[in-house]
């Protein structure tokens, strides 16, 4: 195997400046026609590892290794000039989000032709021909037309294909793809993965770097799990995913929400020292957590929030109007979670803002507990706003940057509280804040800190605490876990599950991630281009979708084997 290895790395160490090394001794080999996936969470050192293989770890990086061989030749300590000859020819790189990974000022044809210009003696006409061939090979329809366009004029999938075309222009024996599908919609993601697999099958060695176990399981032959600068587990993909050996791998596998029944805990206890002890018994039989009153059945079916024929349109720059939400109806039952799922541009976020009465409705109505909600004046609505909380994807942006966590939560606890400094520090207020923080698994030490100083998971917990402060009946969560690492995502999903049960909350859960929606929802609404294409119980929609689009979405969802 070693003789045929396209890439051979032994004890790779990378550090920056005087700080501790980011990569602390990584070894792996990669053969032609093989795909190895390096999987890890943010900060694990996976991207730095990938970039070191191109000599692009950075100007102030210290790269050391016992062995670092590309195509059987050592590339340790190469000068930049020597590296340049190899980049693009011996190894190609595909980055995340081609909107910014291709020069937005230049046509994609020029970008792709650059590799040929730098490494071959082909003339302009020959280069142009080769570019068209390449675009055709990566499955871009109408190459003659597309070659003139710039990344901003192409769809996400098209420009990712163009970026791949630029990376494989010279047929490099090794292709490194760093989060190549991360910003893409799930159906496009599946297409790009298929393209990468095709490249692999043509004999190219593919090194895939990703945070998403489920995604890489589709095409990777082997998986290497990276954690804290080390490869903690390497093996055949099925073996690693079905029978993970290392604690951290088990944690990551457990955190993948798709196909895990509603109520199953995603985060293993060891990984969440801050969270309160889960109340397991209540969910043992996965029944709804309603009070055991005689009329429980009636209460269960109470509609708390109803959307009736919602429509909203945006004005385009040229003055015409575009429907963002078109005749959308659904109802949320007490204690249930309604998942809204759709790809980018499907109108999910606009729907959330309509539910929160932040946008004017053009048609239709939103009713809260059977009473008009969106059609009344803001003044009358304001008193009832406490019963509807919201959690946002960009939790950092949803906090006033000038406020500390203590100020944010004190403010959310109610206007009745005096806003003076001494009042904020009063024992009663502190007690209330501590209780609230305790519920979301945060210590009181975060109170004086600003959201900017917190981690993504901590911020989202503060966001949940703020939403809970007004004792709401309904929580509207717009992509609440989309920007979080998978293990943090698991903790936040578990936390939402806990608070929902304890407070008998009803949830609207909006996400592009079918796996997440499947895990959390009782009912599901599938949206596309502003319309509802299918709705029904999660169990039904996810097992026997009626609409072709739902089926297509479902088929594209990356799942773990087994």
């Amino acid at each position, binding site marked *: 195997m070693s003789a045929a290895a396209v890439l051979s790395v032994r004890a790779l160490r990378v550090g920056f400046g005087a700080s501790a090394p980011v990569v602390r001794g990584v070894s792996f080999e990669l053969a032609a026609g093989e795909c190895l996936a390096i999987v890890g969470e943010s900060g694990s050192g996976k991207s730095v590892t990938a970039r070191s293989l191109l000599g692009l770890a950075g100007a102030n990086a210290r790269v050391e290794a016992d062995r670092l061989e590309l195509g059987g030749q050592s590339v340790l300590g190469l000068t930049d000039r020597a590296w340049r000859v190899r980049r693009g020819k011996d190894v190609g790189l595909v980055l995340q989000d081609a909107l910014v990974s291709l020069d937005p000022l230049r046509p994609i044809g020029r970008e792709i032709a650059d590799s040929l210009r730098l490494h071959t003696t082909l003339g302009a006409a020959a280069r142009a021909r080769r570019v068209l061939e390449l675009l055709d090979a990566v499955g871009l329809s109408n190459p003659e037309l597309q070659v003139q366009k710039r990344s901003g004029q192409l769809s996400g999938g098209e420009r990712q294909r163009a970026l791949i075309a630029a990376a494989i222009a010279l047929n490099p024996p090794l292709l490194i793809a760093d989060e190549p599908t991360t910003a893409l919609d799930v159906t496009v993601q599946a297409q790009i993965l298929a393209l990468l697999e095709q490249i692999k099958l043509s004999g190219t060695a593919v090194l895939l770097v990703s945070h998403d176990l489920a995604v890489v399981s589709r095409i990777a032959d082997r998986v290497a799990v990276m954690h804290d600068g080390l490869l903690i587990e390497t093996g055949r993909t099925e073996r690693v995913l079905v029978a993970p050996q290392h604690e951290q791998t088990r944690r990551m596998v457990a955190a993948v929400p798709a196909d895990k029944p509603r109520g199953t805990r995603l985060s293993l206890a060891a990984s969440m020292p801050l969270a309160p002890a889960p109340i397991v018994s209540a969910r043992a039989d996965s029944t709804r957590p309603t009070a055991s009153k005689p009329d429980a059945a009636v209460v269960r079916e109470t509609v708390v929030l109803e959307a009736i024929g919602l429509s909203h349109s945006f004005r385009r720059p040229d003055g015409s109007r575009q429907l963002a939400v078109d005749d959308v109806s659904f109802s949320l039952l007490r204690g249930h979670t309604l998942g809204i799922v759709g790809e980018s541009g499907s109108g999910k976020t606009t729907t959330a803002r309509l539910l*929160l009465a*932040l946008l004017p409705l053009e048609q239709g109505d939103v009713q809260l507990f059977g009473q008009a909600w969106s059609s009344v004046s803001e003044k009358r609505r*304001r*008193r009832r*706003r*406490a019963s*509807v*909380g*919201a959690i*946002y994807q*960009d939790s950092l*942006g*949803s*906090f*006033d*940057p*000038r406020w500390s966590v203590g100020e944010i939560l004190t*403010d*959310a606890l109610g*206007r009745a509280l005096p806003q003076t400094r001494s009042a904020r520090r009063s024992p009663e207020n502190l007690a209330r804040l501590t209780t609230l923080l305790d519920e979301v698994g945060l210590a009181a030490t975060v109170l004086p800190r*600003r959201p900017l100083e917190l981690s993504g998971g901590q911020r989202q917990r503060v966001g949940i605490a*703020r939403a809970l402060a*007004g004792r709401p009946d309904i929580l509207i969560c717009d992509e609440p876990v989309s920007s979080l690492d998978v293990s943090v995502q698991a903790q936040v999903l578990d936390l939402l599950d806990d608070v929902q049960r304890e407070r008998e909350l009803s949830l609207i859960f909006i996400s592009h991630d079918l796996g997440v929606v499947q895990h959390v929802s009782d009912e599901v609404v599938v949206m596309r281009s502003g319309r509802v294409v299918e709705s029904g119980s999660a169990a039904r929609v996810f097992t026997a979708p009626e609409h072709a689009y739902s089926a297509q979405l479902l088929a594209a969802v990356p799942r773990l084997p087994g």
Partner: protein
Amino acid sequence: MSDLAQQAELTTRSGQSGQPLRLGVAEGMAGVLGLFLLISAVAPQFLAPGDPLGIDPLAAFAPPSFAHGFGTDESGRDIYTRVVHGTQYSLVIGVAATAIGLGLGIVLGTLAGMLGRVVDFTVNRFLEVLFAFPGLLLALLFILVFGPGVATATIAVGLSTAPGYARIIRGQLIAVRGAAFVEAATVLGRTRWQILLRHILPNTLAPLFVLATLGVGQAIVWAATLSYLGLGAEPPTAEWGAMLSAGRTYITSAWWMSFFPGLFIVLTAVTATVLGRSIDRRMRHA
């Protein structure tokens, strides 16, 4: 002589590129200079005990020496003493002009940013028109109408900086108004007034402190320019621009008469820029 509006935008942008926060050499030097200028303005006799207007014809046109660090002028007045004593004129003019410009800018910018599309459109067109009087032109027009002098020059400089401030404040207001945290406050049931007072105004006005710091340096340069052109303070006032203007006649023989007052203008402007940016960076990361 760069425009303040552009400077401020630049500052805002450079604040985001994540430069290290430790106290740089430049910031330290600017701090010391700032302190020196402040003492010069508040208690000039502490740094230069002489009389800034005291003449000594026997010592006229003395080049820089041990007795007269910056030399003397045509009447034998000590340039160093005059420069130190002139600080308060220049600083007061600069601060006053900035206050006028910033005040007008706040009014115009807030009108445009808060009162809906029609007002915004109108104010924007008005600002566009004012921008067609670039730089000193608006100030010169004002002086044409109201005549030269320290007061008119100050107001004139304030006026000509106002459109730049207005544009920044409007942009800042619109950005803050559309921020996610404003929406979050609405969801929490806050009224428009509460949101305005607790979120929008503080987040819009806090950066103005930085703007003002940068602006004072700029305003001093402009006011000195007007004095130099004979439209502001007049000799023998120890205002820096006026001193330079007086030194112009003797440029071939007594370069120090022009050099040192100008040097102080430059140092003041640089100090203001460095301090303004430093404050900005700290506020952003605090």
